[in-house]
């Protein structure tokens, strides 16, 4: 707990100091980023301590508001998310140190570092809050600071639109899902401390359980990016500064998963239908996410869709756990949630890395359009390596950490197939099939992205490529090293993840070691792989030493299609590489493809274009918001700019309230009870309420 409070203090002082130094932008930025990095390290250490120690630590402080309290508590689940936030935060803050030197032509205005610190602090608050009001304060702080960071390059209309989309989406989710959930719990328990929330809804109240769970999926799912609510990710992630995208995709969307898990830990065993519902949503999210990713040209937009896909994978694991819980199979709960949490951490690491690397590409070349890039591996080899590590990890290939968590999720799903009654076994079986499909599609998508950007020859010869600045590389290498460590140290992580399941311990009591047993093969698999990595690296070093600079391949280009004298235009484009797969799924993707018809022997020059549009955005949100905008335009005459009439509005409102109160008295307690009027209460404290009550009785007498 000392770590967490220290981290919050460091973040606050870092934000303040960087504001004070805002005149000298570079200094301000570096002070703030140093603070954010330190706080990240503290979060990781604190989280790890709790996970090893396994006990909940608490902290309470004075709280100035009438509602709620400043109570923090770090249990296993919080600690696990602290780990994610800290790790991604360290990478992103080290990276930011150099990012703004001349990135995109905008220097940092003094706001970046304070907002960055605020965002990290808000996430720490969210995962550590032991009070509903404090949680909502942190949640809102997180949304708003992320909004300003996403719209940081606000000279760009696209960035403004992305930021607004994010703000609207997250607030709709908060208002329609998160706040009602907390309101129900607060009303049930009569207090805002979340310690009492568990058991506030009894197992017999099935309808309430379903309603709360649905609200949670809508509210927290909007933050996380489940499928009908995912539209803000592809809008906001590409336009944000890259370290912010890394933080958003690596950590912010995970707080949605955190909220969902927390909610599930408060609710009693849910009916199996809830688990099935979440499973279907996750399936659609995973498959459609990666399919949309395949159709993108902008690398950061593609990564955003891939985040949607990974949230789907995490959701699959959670739904298997829920299914196990409702059918009374505690070992499934442990394995499913363990897999989900492992994937939360690992996705944070490698998606953070990928976004940082994509940002480096953007920084070095000035464009994120894959079809203009190519051959960057020669010019910026370290960045290529970083992207490669991230891509291998995200595809779930051994020997990296993505493999570990996907293996864990597969284990959970397959255990479900074995252990669930026959009527339900088909569900996890179809999950396994979907996960396999997702994995294959991810491989296509990322092999496309990596090879189009880093291999072959540059497609747009007019691009100039700069070097990647050292601190940006350092930030990426931190996350890449974390990816490797996450795989090689998976034994320790698996042990730690069972400590993270403490909030669910009541149903998985005594079974928390099931996950360690279930995931034991990973250790056996990875140990020889570790040896293999060391040997490969050793061989590479030896080769460098023995024959420096000797080329391996022949004269032809790598993607030269067998031509001895290839031109750059002969290379595969990203779209053509992905088209084979896209065509198989055109019944759901509905890509727009305009191709020239080849009718004669000597066809004229033609243009071919393919565009993939997001169904939810195109068919649901876009028409809905256009309609709403038209509706609200009718209210525009009310805003005429005359102060006196505005005051009339206020006076009219006050009058109406007075009149309603005077006639029907809905806002005051019945005088018969001698209760105090609500109006007497504020700012006077308990004493005056008592006196007021006496006065009221006097009057009656």
């Amino acid at each position, binding site marked *: 707990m000392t770590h967490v409070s220290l981290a919050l203090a460091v973040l606050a002082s870092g934000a303040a100091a960087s504001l004070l130094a805002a005149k000298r932008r570079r200094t301000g930025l570096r002070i703030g980023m140093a603070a954010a990095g330190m706080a990240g390290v503290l979060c990781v250490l604190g989280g790890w301590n709790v996970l090893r120690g396994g006990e909940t630590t608490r902290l309470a402080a004075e709280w100035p508001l009438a509602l709620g309290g400043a109570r923090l508590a770090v249990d296993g689940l919080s600690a696990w998310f602290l780990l994610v936030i800290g790790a991604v935060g360290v990478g992103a803050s080290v990276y930011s140190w150099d990012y703004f030197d001349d990135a995109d032509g905008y220097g940092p205005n003094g706001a970046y570092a304070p907002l960055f610190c605020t965002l990290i602090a808000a996430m720490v608050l969210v995962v550590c809050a032991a009070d509903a009001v404090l949680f909502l304060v942190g949640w809102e702080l997180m949304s708003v600071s992320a909004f300003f960071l996403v719209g940081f390059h606000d000279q760009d209309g696209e960035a403004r639109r992305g930021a607004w989309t994010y703000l609207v989406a997250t607030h709709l989710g908060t208002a329609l899902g998160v706040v009602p959930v907390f309101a129900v719990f607060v009303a049930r328990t009569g207090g805002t401390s979340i310690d009492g929330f568990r058991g506030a809804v009894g197992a017999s109240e099935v309808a309430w359980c379903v309603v709360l769970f649905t609200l949670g999926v809508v509210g927290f799912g909007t933050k996380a990016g489940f499928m009908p609510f995912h539209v803000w990710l592809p809008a906001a992630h590409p336009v944000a500064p890259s370290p912010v995208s890394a933080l958003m995709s690596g950590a912010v969307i995970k707080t949605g998963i955190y909220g969902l898990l927390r909610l599930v830990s408060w609710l009693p065993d849910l009916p199996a239908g809830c688990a099935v519902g979440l499973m279907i949503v996750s399936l659609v999210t995973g498959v459609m996410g990666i399919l949309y990713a395949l159709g993108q040209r902008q690398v950061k937009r593609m990564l955003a869709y891939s985040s949607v896909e990974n949230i789907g994978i995490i959701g699959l694991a959670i739904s298997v756990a829920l299914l196990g819980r409702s059918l009374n199979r505690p070992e499934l709960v442990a394995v499913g949630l363990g897999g989900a949490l492992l994937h939360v951490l690992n996705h944070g690491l490698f998606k953070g890395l990928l976004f940082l690397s994509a940002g480096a590409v953007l920084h070095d070349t000035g464009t994120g359009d894959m079809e203009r890039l190519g051959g960057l591996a020669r010019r910026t080899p370290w960045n290529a390596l970083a992207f490669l590590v991230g891509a291998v990890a995200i595809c779930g290939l051994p020997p990296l950490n993505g493999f570990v968590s996907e293996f864990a999720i597969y284990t959970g799903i397959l255990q479900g197939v074995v252990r669930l009654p026959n009527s339900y076994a088909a569900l996890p079986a179809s999950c396994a099939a979907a996960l396999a499909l997702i994995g294959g599609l991810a491989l296509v998508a990322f092999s496309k992205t990596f090879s189009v950007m880093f291999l072959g020859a540059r497609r747009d010869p007019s691009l100039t490529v700069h070097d990647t600045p050292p601190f940006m590389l350092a930030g990426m290498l931190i996350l890449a090293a974390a990816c490797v460590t996450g795989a090689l140290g998976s034994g320790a992580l698996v042990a730690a993840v069972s400590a993270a399941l403490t909030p669910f311990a009541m149903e998985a009591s005594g079974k928390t070691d099931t996950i360690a047993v279930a995931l034991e093969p990973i250790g056996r698999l990875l140990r020889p792989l570790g040896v293999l990595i060391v040997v490969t690296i050793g061989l590479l070093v030896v080769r460098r030493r023995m024959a420096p600079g000797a080329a391996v391949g022949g004269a032809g280009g790598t993607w030269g299609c067998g031509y001895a004298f290839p031109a750059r235009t002969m290379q595969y484009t990203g779209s053509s590489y992905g088209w084979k797969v896209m065509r198989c799924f055109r019944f759901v993707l509905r890509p727009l493809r305009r191709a020239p018809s080849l009718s004669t022997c000597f066809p004229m020059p033609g243009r071919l274009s393919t565009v993939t549009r997001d169904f939810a955005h195109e068919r649901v949100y876009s028409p809905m918001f256009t309609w709403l905008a038209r509706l609200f335009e009718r209210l525009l005459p009310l805003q005429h*700019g005359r102060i006196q009439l505005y005051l009339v509005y206020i006076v009219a409102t006050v009058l109406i309230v007075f009149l309603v109160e005077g006639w029907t008295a809905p806002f005051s307690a019945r005088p018969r009870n001698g209760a105090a009027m609500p109006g007497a209460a504020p*700012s006077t404290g308990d004493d005056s309420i008592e006196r007021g009550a006496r006065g009221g009785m006097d009057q009656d007498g």
Partner: protein
Amino acid sequence: MLRSVMDSILILAALLNLAMLATSRMAACIRTFAVQSLLLALLPVAVGFSHDAAPGVHVFAIAAGTMGLKVLLIPWILLRVLRSGEIHREVEPFIGFTASVLLGALIIVASFAFADGMPLPSRAPTDLLVPVAVATLFNGLLILVSRAKAITQVLGYLVVENGVFVFGLLLLDQTPALVELGILLDLFVGVFIMGIVVYHIRREFDHMDTHLLDALRES
């Protein structure tokens, strides 16, 4: 005896509202406000004595603060703005003077009718207190909505505050003096800033009509 003093102060204050609505000269308007504030500044002392024989220091503190601020300082600032701004000294109402006074009188009658039904936290020291408070509040709002110039807006806001002040007397021995003084400080800062703003509006646009601000609306 105390009761009749309080009642006469309250009735005078209510009548001064009407006087403010009827005055066409801005300086006179401000002076009327000062007189009203002076009368109201005496009220906390009277209410304090009606509660017990030796009231605490804080009723005197409130009376002194109100007097210093609303009777001397704020009118002085407003008159200075008036002079330095070389404003046309007419009030320029949207609603004519006669109509305003009639409306104001209607408001007073309505407040008396309305005050009976109002649930109160504690017993009022005199029956007139609540109706006059409500009447002053709504008369202030009437000034706010019916007058064009920025400086009359400030004045309307101050009259509203006077109404709230009278209302606050209900809670006199429950509200900490610190809160009351804090309100006074807020008021002072508010008027101070508005004075500066009014001055700048005049300097920029050569007039102080707020209704011309509608050029700033979003179209």
